């Protein structure tokens, strides 16, 4: 599983950080960071994160 974030769409709302805190986080500069290829056990969280993104900026590739 690979996480892709379209940074042209991302508005840093942080809903993905709430949904999947082990895969997404805010850096000290307030910008979003994420694990590019998260562990399979995080799949449900990461799918929720992609679903819930208000800007629909997150896509997952298998």
């Amino acid at each position: 599983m690979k996480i892709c974030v379209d940074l042209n769409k991302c508005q840093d709302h942080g809903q993905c950080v709430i949904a999947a805190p082990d895969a997404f986080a805010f850096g000290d500069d307030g910008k979003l960071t994420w694990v590019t290829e998260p562990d399979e056990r995080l799949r449900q969280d990461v799918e929720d994160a992609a679903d819930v993104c208000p800007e629909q900026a997150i896509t997952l590739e298998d």
Partner: protein
Amino acid sequence: MAVSSTRELPFLNVADPDFAMTSDEVVAARARSWCARTNYGLAALRYDAVKTLLKDRRLRQGSHAWPRHNGVTGPFADWWGHVLLNKEGGDHARLRRLVNPAFSPRLIGSLGPQFRALGEELIDAFHDEGRCEFVSQFAEPYAARVICMMLGIPQSEWKTIATWSSDMGLALGVTFKQDLPKIEAALEGLYGYADDLIADRRVNPGEDFVSRLVLAQRDEDSLSHEELRIMLVLLIFGGMDTTRNQLGLALQTFMRHPDQWRLLAERPDLGGAAVEEVMRVNPTVTWVTREAVEDFTYEGVDIAKGTTVHLFSQVAGTDPAAIPDPGFDITAERPPHFGFGGGAHHCLGHFVARSDMSEALPLLARRLREPRIDGTATWLPASGNTGPIEMPLRFTPGN
């Protein structure tokens, strides 16, 4: 610009009944500074400032103390203290994680045909007469029946839901304390609905929205009965008046831009863009409230812990620094608006609102040609959550 003292900032008297977000005074203040002083604290006026401060973790959602500021205790104050909107940090994240999947855009997207059928039915009832009272004959039943659909309540009960929700809305107004008995009766009524729904879905779980909330689980954690009923009341309260008001405001905006209304009638695929463009220039939620949780300085302005900072969504949405084109154009590319707030407290129901309004507006454009005010429209105050109370319309029936 370095501002050593907030006294140098422009002042906006937002408590004045004639205060308007679209006034020359506000435009001039935005040109002068990113920030103004108001009767309640500070106001952010520019696109970049609102965009940044919405997500700044040195600010929390700012209306948590509203009942206390009004000297109100009891059932409403208890509900207010426990709703998602007024939670922060770990408590907020836990609740949001549990409820978010019920609002999945995949689930909401499948409701499009039902939203369209509802819109057609409501329009059919007045279409041939070429006139209607838009709020009571379309906006209000549409908003309320969408909520009935989501919750699996018989649609015949929409009026009760709408009335209780509006009564709850009195809590946001200046007569909060004197309206308290009415507000508490509405809360009690909505709790009753919620209790019945929760009990039913525990016994008969399905694929529907309420079942998803009842069954929501993460790592052995789930919503308690108390949390579920608080949440369901919030969803009704949060989805009803906002959608009704926003539909009325959409009509107001399009009546000022008849070419855009005609375009939408021909291009129903622009329904989604129409919702975004209306919410940029004419949102029902004209500001969102934040409160500083620590002392900090932003763009030369010292903000002390405890300061209320209003983020003027509507004023930011028309900031020429971010949107140089002053027009209203549903085909234009625009940066995101702030009509749904943003950050951790971004509107939970925005996929529902976006979906139901993007179905309703093209239908209305096709069947209510050349709409114009027939008599006098009456309006809620321009501050806070605004919109028409009554909006009598005449139109040319379209097919």
